[in-house]
């Protein structure tokens, strides 16, 4: 029988997955949210918060504009936090690495889904041009269902292979944590530089970074 915690994780992973573009784009798929809730559902909120904190640094470098291709961190954060708690992983690094890999796969799956949607819409072109509302409703329902399926498959596959992968990576746990945190810091810094642009905003960002360093030193 399916473990209730596992079932909840998959359901939450589906919600986090469709939140990225399909519905409702309400921050549920952000790693800090998705991983925290996943940690809570799996039984350890603290691990979820830590993994959410780490994966969110990577997500801060994503600008999901137009036809841009980007990783999907929502289901990935659920896989990372859920598997870390359920397997009792010691270090953050291996679970975060699993999350990073899952995010790339989920992003690629999104690309496939968009192409599949394109084929379905092309097949319905005549009906759409004639204003056929029934066809429109079917396309919309299947589009949403397709994204739900994509997210469920990603989360299920991620959670299924997680125990073996985490065991394999466990000896390098501490080193991987350092690498993953460094990568996250680089990603967030890159996103920050992009947003700050030039001129006054960059000066404000520099001053704020100084404030952040003081806060970090006091922690």
């Amino acid at each position, binding site marked *: 029988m399916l473990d209730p915690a596992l079932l909840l994780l998959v359901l939450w992973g589906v919600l986090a997955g469709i939140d990225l*573009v399909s519905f*409702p*784009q*309400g*921050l*549920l798929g*952000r790693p*800090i949210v998705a991983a*925290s809730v996943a940690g809570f559902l799996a039984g350890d909120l603290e691990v979820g918060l*830590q993994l*959410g*904190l*780490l994966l*969110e*640094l*990577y997500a801060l470098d994503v*600008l*999901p*504009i*137009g036809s841009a291709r980007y990783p999907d961190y929502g289901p990935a954060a659920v896989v990372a936090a859920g598997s870390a708690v359920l397997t009792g992983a010691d270090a953050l690094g291996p679970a975060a*690495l699993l999350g*990073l890999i899952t*995010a790339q796969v989920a992003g690629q799956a999104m690309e496939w889904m*968009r*192409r599949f*949607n*394109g084929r379905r819409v092309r097949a319905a072109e005549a009906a*759409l041009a*004639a*204003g056929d*509302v029934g066809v*429109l*409703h079917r*396309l*919309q329902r299947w589009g949403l269902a397709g994204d739900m399926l994509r997210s469920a498959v990603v989360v299920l596959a991620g959670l299924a292979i997680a125990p073996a992968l985490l065991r394999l990576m466990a000896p*390098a746990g501490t*080193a*991987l*944590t*350092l*690498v*993953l*945190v*460094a*990568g996250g*810091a*680089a*990603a967030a810094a*890159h*996103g*920050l530089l992009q*947003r700050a642009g030039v001129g006054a905003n960059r000066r404000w*960002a*520099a001053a704020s*970074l100084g*404030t*952040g360093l003081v*806060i*970090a030193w006091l*922690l």
Partner: protein
Amino acid sequence: MAPLKGRGLALVRSLEIQAVWTYERMQGIGLGYALEPILGQVLDGDAGRFRAAMGRGTTFFNANPYLSPAAVGALARAEADGVPPDQVLRLRTALGGPLGAIGDRLFWAGLVPTVVSGALLGVALGGGIWPVLLAVVTYNTVRVGLGVWLMELGWANGMRVGAAIGASWLPHAGTVASLAAAVLAAVALPPAVVQLLGGAARPQLALVVGLALLILGARRLLGTRATAPALTLLVSALVLLWQWGTS
């Protein structure tokens, strides 16, 4: 001006404007789906006009999804006023640019990173789940409130909605929000890193900072394909190979 009917359902449907996103029509299908409840009300009893309007309603459209309610309101008004079809299609095309530019700056470069960075800072400072929940509630309150206002603005102004948005507070809000995002992300980054490293010794902290600068430098040097996650995966693979090779 007639009151806007069907806006509740249209607003809910605008939340799934990208569920059938395609490279050919982008958000076109979703926009048509969101338009339907209003067109069904305002063109009630005229099946021919309704079907023709729905046929136009699903053609190409691309803008920021959060600002799409303005397009829903404006296009519905244009159809209700009996604006010629070629002008409705021109309005649809013309709206994409400004709604995309203003919305991307306001949301993707502003509100989203601002709220998320606030949550990161709160978690890093030991606030637990509460900063995360506050971020989600705040963001969605702003987003839904803005959606209601935009749909009304679109309905009230119809073909002149572009000028109405340009004259509103929205363009300036984008500038403020992007500055807020830069400030909050910069404040949150160092505490987040320190929190993640827990009680790590200074040499480890120095290693992390050095590696982060290396990845950042490599990313800028190697171009857009060498993203931070890609470079991190590469370094992680090397670490794992070294670990397995020496154990």
